[in-house]
C-alpha cells in the first residue's frame, strides 16, 4: 500500500537520516542493529510512543513482512516471527532492512510526511511524492551512510553494514 505525501528529495532524506542517527546516539558511520534498536525506541526523544510486537507469521498477510500502524496513542510496529528471527540471527540482510523500514515509517510520519489523501494511492505519482519511496530511501540512508560508503564495494558494504546484496547495489547507484 502506498500514499501520496508532500515532496521530499533524497538530499533531505539524507539529512533526516543523520538526524535519526544523532537521536539514537549512533556515530555517523557505525553499523546499526535494527533489532536491538526496537527495545530502545521508547527511550529515544520523539519515539516514546513507538512500540513493537513480534507476531506469528500467519497473523500478517503473506506479502507483508512487517508493518507500522498508527494507534490511538502512538505507533505499533508488528513484525513476523520469521522476519524477526532472520534479522536477529543476521542471516538475512533484507529482514533487518524490513525492520528499519517500519521504524522509518514512524519517523517520517513524525516529521510531517503524512498521507495527503486518506484513500489508497491509485494515480501515477512521481517517486519523490510517494511515501513508500521516501521510507525505502531513508531506510537505506540510515543503514548505509552516504559519506562512508562511496569508496566501498558491494561486498564491503554488505559486510560492514549487514545488508543484502540488493540494498548494497542500490546504495552504489545513488
Amino acid at each position, binding site marked *: 500500500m502506498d500514499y501520496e505525501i508532500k515532496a521530499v528529495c533524497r538530499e533531505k532524506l539524507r539529512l533526516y537520516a543523520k538526524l535519526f542517527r544523532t537521536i539514537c546516539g549512533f556515530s555517523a558511520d557505525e553499523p546499526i542493529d535494527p*533489532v*536491538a534498536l*526496537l*527495545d*530502545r525506541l*521508547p*527511550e529515544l526523544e520523539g519515539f516514546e510512543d513507538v*512500540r*513493537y*510486537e*513480534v*507476531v*506469528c507469521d500467519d497473523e500478517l498477510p503473506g506479502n507483508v513482512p512487517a508493518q507500522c500502524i498508527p*494507534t490511538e*496513542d*502512538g505507533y*505499533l510496529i508488528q513484525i513476523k*516471527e520469521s522476519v*524477526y*528471527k532472520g534479522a*536477529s*540471527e543476521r542471516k538475512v540482510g533484507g529482514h533487518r532492512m524490513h525492520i528499519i523500514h517500519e521504524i522509518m515509517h514512524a519517523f517520517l510520519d513524525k516529521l510531517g510526511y503524512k498521507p495527503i489523501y486518506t484513500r489508497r494511492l491509485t494515480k501515477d505519482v512521481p517517486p519523490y511524492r510517494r511515501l513508500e519511496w521516501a521510507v525505502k530511501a531513508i531506510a537505506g540512508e540510515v543503514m548505509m551512510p552516504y559519506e562512508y560508503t562511496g569508496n566501498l564495494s558491494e561486498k564491503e558494504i554488505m559486510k560492514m553494514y549487514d545488508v543484502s546484496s540488493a540494498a548494497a547495489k542500490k546504495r552504489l547507484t545513488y
Partner: protein
Amino acid sequence: MSYTKFGEFMRVLRVKNHEIMGDTAKLLNCMVSFVSSVENGKKNVPESWAPILIDHYHLDESQQKELYEAIEESKTQVKLNLSSASVSQRKLAVQFQRSFEKLDDETANAILNLLKEDAD
C-alpha cells in the same frame, strides 16, 4: 497501546544487558511471538518464568519484588478457587465477574480501598 508493566520491566532489563527479545525467547525456551504477546498483555506471564529470570539476571531482593509486582499487575486473567467458599463469597465472586467490565475507575478504586482497609 503500551507495554504491560512486565513488558516494560523486561524491556529495560534487556537494554541494560545488551540483549534482545530473541535472547529472552531462547532463555525461556519459547517462540519470540509468545514472549511478545505476554509483554504486550495478550497472555499471562507463565509461572515458571520468574525463577528463570531472577537467576539469569541475578536480580536482587528489591528487583525480585518489582518483578513479581509487574507480573501481578500484568495479569490478563485471574482464577478464583471457589471450592471452599461460602455462599455469600460465591455470590460476590459471580456478581463481581458480571459487573467487572462496567466498573469505572472511581468505583474500582473505592472497592479496592475498602478491601485494603479490611485486609489491614
